[in-house]
């Protein structure tokens, strides 16, 4: 690999299901730090040849690191972006990590329930802001139970009748006796960029965006 003189770049990637796809995307454009998928305790991985480093952090933290400039760019799902509303650029929909955000309720309830009659409901979710906006825009009062995981448990234990959560295959819903009522949005992951990084390292950032875009069309 030839020596590069381009400016150093820090990229924040989310732990979890999107990480593998994100890494293979960057690999296609020549940024490939060693050990990202094998060393689970390290948080920072350097690729000296490409003059870039990966930071592996929780998805919810990616927009924060990017907005404050601790990372120049990052990859994160639209669910997190919409929930947090940060002041950042969002140049590319990478099409990876596809899933859907839905409203779900127990199968038994669904048989007798008519969502058009909802006026006031209680919903458990990891996404209080999106949930609040979604139901308020339909004129439905919503009481939100904010949970950090295992949302499907809430209806089983009577914490709430309904949930708002991400589904990909629908298997988790099914196993917990829940069915989808309506879809709030489709979710994929986006490339996000810090504003100051784009202004102070325009050529480097532009090059990465363009090459990622090319890698996406070749897919």
């Amino acid at each position, binding site marked *: 690999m030839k020596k590069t003189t381009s400016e150093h770049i820090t990229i924040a990637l989310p732990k979890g299901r999107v990480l593998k796809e994100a890494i293979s995307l960057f690999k296609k454009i020549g940024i490939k730090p060693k050990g990202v998928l094998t060393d689970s305790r390290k948080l920072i991985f350097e690729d000296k040849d490409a003059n870039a480093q990966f930071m592996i952090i929780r998805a919810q933290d990616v927009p924060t690191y990017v907005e404050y400039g601790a990372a120049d760019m990052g990859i994160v799902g639209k669910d997190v972006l919409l929930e947090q509303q940060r002041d950042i*650029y969002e140049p590319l929909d990478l099409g990876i990590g596809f899933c859907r955000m839905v409203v779900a309720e127990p199968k038994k309830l669904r048989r007798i329930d008519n969502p058009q009659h909802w006026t006031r409901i209680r919903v458990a979710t990891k996404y209080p802001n999106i949930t609040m906006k979604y139901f308020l825009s339909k004129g439905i009062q919503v009481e939100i139970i904010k949970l950090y995981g295992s949302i499907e448990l809430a209806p089983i234990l009577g914490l709430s009748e309904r949930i708002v959560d991400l589904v990909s295959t629908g298997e988790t819903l099914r196993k917990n006796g829940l069915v989808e009522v309506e879809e709030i949005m489709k979710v994929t992951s986006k490339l996000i960029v810090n504003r100051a990084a784009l*202004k102070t390292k325009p050529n480097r950032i532009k090059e990465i965006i363009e090459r990622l*875009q090319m890698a996406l069309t070749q897919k």
Partner: protein
Amino acid sequence: MTDKSLNISLPQGVRDMLPEEAEKARYVEETIVSVLEKNGFRRVITPLLEYIDVLSLGLGAELQDKIFKFVDPVSGKIIAIRPDITPQVARMVSTRMRDYPLPIKLYYNENILRCEEPRGGLPSELLQIGAEYIGEDSPDADAEVIATAVEAIKKVGVRDFKIDIGHIGFFKGILEDIKASKDIKKKIKDAVLIKDNSSLQEVLSSVREVRGDNAIKILSDLPSLFGDKGVIDKLKSQVKNETAIKALDDLASIINMLEKKKLKNYITIDLGEVRGFDYYTGVIFEGFTKGFGRAILKGGRYNNLLEKYGYPCPATGFAFNTENVIAAVK
């Protein structure tokens, strides 16, 4: 020692500055102010409170819902704590300074209060030092204001910074050349605002041009039209819209003047910057420094503002976020 039995707290969004930090703030303020005064700007002091209907005349849409307001118990009128100083300066000049010869060059060093969404709508206090250049509509005036900003940043001791320059007239002009509803145009603007290529291409796929003159191609390129002045040169032959051509010409002459002042290395261009779409009328710019994620200054041309207070008069200016400058100086 803090008395644990007392609950001595502050509302969110405001804070004290201890001597060490206050000294640093004083250094930054004095340095910037000295540069502004050297360049002929004179200080004005505006009041903390305004009637909301008076203040709202001159506020951009982005600030309208960030105003901290309360009802005056005596008159029953709604009073606002200023979220921006520029409308106050516009009001002052329009109502009290019409006999001053133009151009009028003013500066201020004040605190403002904004209710920011990330804090759940709670107000936060910000310090601003700003300069306004009133009464001249020319690239010369814009270049002079930008050069003054650069001089101040250098003098304060911030290294490795860029002034990113755009022109709201470019986007407005190109937008004239497509057939689309208000709603679609807003979607286009929102996508351009965050350089969202993917959403932008999707919206544009349903849009047609007025005259078949490249408008859609240029709009779809907007998120990547940033970098050095090569961006402008590359576009010149493609653009047919008059407003957009005028914007490119203005930008080219501003850059030309800044290059003559040996400021070339501090300048970047971004034609896809559309912040303050309804407020600014011409050149817009922001100052960024490496390793500090947020802007340290913002500014631009606002030719319609003074007219809202009854005095049709062009103007341009900028404001430093003083605390961001202090943080960037280290």
